[in-house]
């Protein structure tokens, strides 16, 4: 349904420096209907940039994003609205997502003004109520309130409900639960997982591996704008192969396993080498990283790809 083909994003940075900065490089993956793909990365990995490129909030420097055969970057002017009918986003900070001086349900009114100006008031109200109920909220409790009168969890769910008012195919959920309390975040996460049954494709962007692991079918691990490992979630987590993936998994604080134990359970990692973006953080490599070449993603098993030079020799298929 949605496919990213070698997309990259370059920025000019520095008020004084004028340097080039590549936030995302050659990222390719696909998102199918009724599928949750989690895009996992630490700060600066470019995960949010990928999400914003899909949402057309920033331009793509190179590569293409294709939705049902249509190149998204060619969608211009009035057609953008049509695109947003199918693709929507929810962001990290629920309080920053609402204009603080307006009531929270203004996010719905905006959709009505822009997309359903013809619809009768009562019909629209029914539609909103249905959407609010679909995200397990009580319309009487949440409508007609100011953002500061609602909890973070309620606000995020309202944003999901807002997206449901449209004929949504793809939802980009960028860190949408990382600012919520532990007691409510899992419910919002479950809500996302339930949306799959409506045939929606969800890009779940997160830095939290356990959350990605919990809801997604497919996992993409991003580091410094480059995919280092991706594949079926159970394979990436069951057989983490790239040294970076391993490092991440061994750093996740777990509830029933101490760090030392997790580390000992992971078998000896493969060695990296010069040119790999992970090199400088990975002492086993021992070579200088002056090459801009990235290792290509190698297929190490069905539905599991890893970007590491050590694996290139034995790769069976080249992706991207």
């Amino acid at each position, binding site marked *: 349904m949605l496919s990213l083909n070698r997309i990259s994003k370059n920025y000019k940075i*520095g*008020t*004084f*420096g*004028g340097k080039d900065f590549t936030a995302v490089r050659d990222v390719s993956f696909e998102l199918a209907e009724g599928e949750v793909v989690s895009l996992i990365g630490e700060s600066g990995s470019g995960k949010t940039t990928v999400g914003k490129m899909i949402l057309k909030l920033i331009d793509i420097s190179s590569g293409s994003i294709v939705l049902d055969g249509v190149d998204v970057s060619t969608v211009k002017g009035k057609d953008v609205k049509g695109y947003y009918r199918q693709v929507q986003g929810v962001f990290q900070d629920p309080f920053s997502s609402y204009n603080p001086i307006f009531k929270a349900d203004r996010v719905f009114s905006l959709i009505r003004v822009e997309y359903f100006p013809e619809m009768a008031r009562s019909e629209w109200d029914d539609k909103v109520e249905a959407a609010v109920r679909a995200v397990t909220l009580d319309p009487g409790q949440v409508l007609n309130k100011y953002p500061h009168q609602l909890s973070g969890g309620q606000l995020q769910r309202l944003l999901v409900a807002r997206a449901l008012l449209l004929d949504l195919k793809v939802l980009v959920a960028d860190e949408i639960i990382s600012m919520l309390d532990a007691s409510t975040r899992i419910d919002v996460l479950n809500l996302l997982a339930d949306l799959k049954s409506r045939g929606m494709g969800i890009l779940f962007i997160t830095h939290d591996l356990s959350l990605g692991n919990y809801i997604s079918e497919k996992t993409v691990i991003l580091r410094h704008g480059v995919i280092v490992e991706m594949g079926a979630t159970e394979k990436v987590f069951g057989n983490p192969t790239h040294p970076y993936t391993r490092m991440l998994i061994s750093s996740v604080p777990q509830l029933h396993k101490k760090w030392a134990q997790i580390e000992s359970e992971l078998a000896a990692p493969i060695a990296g080498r010069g040119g790999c973006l992970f090199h400088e953080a990975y002492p086993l490599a021992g070579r200088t990283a002056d090459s801009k070449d990235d290792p290509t993603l190698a297929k190490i098993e069905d539905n599991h790809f890893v970007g590491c030079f050590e694996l290139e020799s034995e790769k069976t298929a080249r992706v991207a």
Partner: protein
Amino acid sequence: MRRYFGRKLLTYAITFFIAATIDWLIPRLMPGDPIAGMMQRTGGGSTLSPEASAAMVQYYTNLFGLNRPMWEQYLGFWTSLFHGDLGLSIFGHGRAVTDTIMAAVPYTLGLLIPAILLSYWLGNSFGAVAARRKWLDNSILPIGYLLTATPYMWLGLMLAYIVGFTFRWFPLSGGYGFNLEPALTWLFISDLIAHWFMPFFSLFLVMLGGWAIGMRNMIIYELESDYSRYLEALGAPQRLVRKYAFRNAMLPQITGLALQLGVIVAGALVTEIVFSYPGIGQLVFNAIKSEDYFLLQGIFLFIIIGVLAANFIVDIVYVIVDPRTRVAMRGGTA
């Protein structure tokens, strides 16, 4: 760093270019014919000697010569500008505008520089002190607001009236006594200072209020900042917390100085007029009265150059004082 200053210099160059062009354009854009008016008056020759008058007529013909195409006039304007030739002054009895201005500049700078530096230093100190105690805050703040809201010339007038007219402590007008010739004698210097004091003091007072308020607001903001909270959490004495807050609050004040320069110069001009102090302001006043456009345009360019230079100095000072800009310019390591 080079890029930063390069950018700044570019802005200043463009500013100067635009200002100079405006300066050249204004007389040509204005309805009516200013030259005709000027010729009419200079032709009368009441204030000028015949030779000077002839020289000026010649000059006008050259500069405004409408027989020449516009671009040539414009180019000629820049050429003479680079030669420091700003024309001749009617008010200066045919003297070169540049010379007339240069004679007035020391007086204006003599007012401005001490007034700016002293008010900046004292005002910031007052502001910092005000932020410390409630009663000080309640007394310094209203005074500060009144001072900044006072028109420069009015404070000058009030000072002149009270100190000069009523008590006769200081002379009311001029740069030095009519009966004196400039010389390096004690008599002359003391007279110079006596004439200097009131215009200086009135400029100083108005500015003082602005700095005090700015610093007070800044420092309150800094005292709420995270590094202040951390210092307090570690039991650092108020003395240290305030010292840090003061240092950090100084930085935006430097930028404030740059932003205020135009206003300050304007304040100096009107203050000089009040005291008939022989600086640029008085020159402007006379130029307007005698409709001496060359002089006025020359002064305009001169003020622009002065303000641009001062801005550049402030830019340099800021980079020296704020380590953050310095680090950012080095490219940073973070």
